[in-house]
């Protein structure tokens, strides 16, 4: 985390004074963007930097679904399966991904290339079914579109 301190100081300057506790979520997001997950050493460093209770950081990490404590594949394939996506074939999409990648939701391929997850509503119901890969939302996906897309992700 040490190499991010200059960036953290800049983020901190944008918040009102007395808002150090608020910085836990943005800093954890930045750490995870950098490392891919949040390591124990990151928690130690954040406790030192922000002077917030360790339990607060642990709670945030365990509560919010986007935070990870372990590395995952280079490409995080997240298929929405909430109502609108289900009405337009989310089950079929998840089945296809499971067969194509030979992993179940929650698992990572042996080569560390893909992690598959199912998620709840990405607020893009008008273009369902949607699959988010890393930071990018892919709309109106079909098995064919996904196959072509996955080829390009190395």
């Amino acid at each position, binding site marked *: 985390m040490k190499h991010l301190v200059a960036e953290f100081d800049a983020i901190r300057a944008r918040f009102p004074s007395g808002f150090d506790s608020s910085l836990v979520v943005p800093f954890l997001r930045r750490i995870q963007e950098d490392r891919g997950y949040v390591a124990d050493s990151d928690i130690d460093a954040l406790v030192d930097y922000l002077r917030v209770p360790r339990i607060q950081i642990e709670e945030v990490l365990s*509560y919010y679904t986007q*935070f990870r404590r372990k590395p995952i594949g280079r490409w995080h394939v997240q298929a929405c399966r909430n109502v609108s996506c289900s*009405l337009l074939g989310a089950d079929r999409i998840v089945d296809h991904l499971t067969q194509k990648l030979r992993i179940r939701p929650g698992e990572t391929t042996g080569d560390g290339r893909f992690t598959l997850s199912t998620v709840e509503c990405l607020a893009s119901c008008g273009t369902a079914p949607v699959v988010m890969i890393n930071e990018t939302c892919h709309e109106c996906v079909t098995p064919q579109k996904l196959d072509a897309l996955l080829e390009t992700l190395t």
Partner: protein
Amino acid sequence: MSNSKLLMTFPVSATSHTLVEYRERGGYATLEKVLRQMTPTQVSAEITASGIQGRGGAAFPMGRKWGVVHLNDGQPHYLCANADEGEPGTFKDRWILENAPHLLVESMVIAAYALQVRNAFVYIRGEFDLPYRRLAAAVDEAYQAGYLGARILGTDVSCDLVIYRGAGSYVCGEASALLTSIEGRKPYPRNRPPRLTVRGLYQRPTVVNNVETLANIVGIVANGAQAFRAVGTAKNPGTRLISISGHISRPGVYEIEVGYPWSKFIHEDCGGVSGGRQLKAVIPGGISTKVLTAAEIEPLHLDNQEVEAAGSSLGSGGMIVIAEGTCMVRLLQVMLRFYHHESCGQCTPCREGMGWLHRIIDRVVAGDGRPEDIERLYQISAWNDGTTICGMGDAAGYATSGVLNKFRDEFEYFIDNKRSRLHGNLECLASS
């Protein structure tokens, strides 16, 4: 009826979200007028006179919410835009964030002036990528142009805006949970009283408004409350952004005048049910609002009063269209899996109840349903009604009892025959 537009008033292009084009459409002229010619109280009075109701789901009048904040109480006040759009079926705020981010920024600076707020926040859900990038770019542009920061437009008014990204939690869309999340903690909702406008972010008076509600401020202040009231109905003026999805030919975000005929909206504006099927049911405003059958919506208008009289609500405007042939048992399973996943665990009825509901519906779908399961689902829903700190327990119960009330026969068939009466499909396959 005519269908006036207040928000979707310009053609969307690859650059229509930028500051240059926003200014060409008259952007930030209202802010200039407010800062130079109006007092904070005059702005608030205009908002109150407009009668605008919150667009996030609860339909609380914005003026009444603002009225609780005392301008001269010697405390810092905070303003927060709720952009944690997470109610399944709802994607209208995404449209504003992607296509009109400056409309939100300008509206928020006007609101900050009216409420004497030095620090404003936009709480945006962590999964939003393009909406976040568009908004962040707009905020940067606004700072550079002097619409945000110290001494805005050379006046002695200052306001800073921070975009706060969530990290994946449905409950954060509830205003008090949202503020707890901005405090960097696990987002447990808070009991009221005290209201958030009395003790909100870090115990200071805080106004939390939905993105769409806030985005209306520029128009209300620019054209006056009377012009706003000329649109919509007397009790619920203005327009609504309706995001429509599911088995519909032309899904997307539509701006409709409150009171627009519902059936016309679905069958004409949105092109009717996809695949030429018959309409079975509609979830009016996010999955937490009770489902209505095709026959029920036929005579109704898109006005919260009418929809509430029919036993549901327009909620957050997230309309989901369900075609004939869709298995409602499977549909409820998807909903209950979601509520189980998202319960924060603070209140016992919701923490235990959501898992219980989910296990029962899973069992029914697996073909192991028991005759008493339907009554049990009702009972757990009732135990959640009014017994949880936030509205999620109630919402899950409404969703459950809504589906059971209207489609009980499908559940009975599924339990008796260990299979769906309708092939168990959720997807509307065009060929069949």
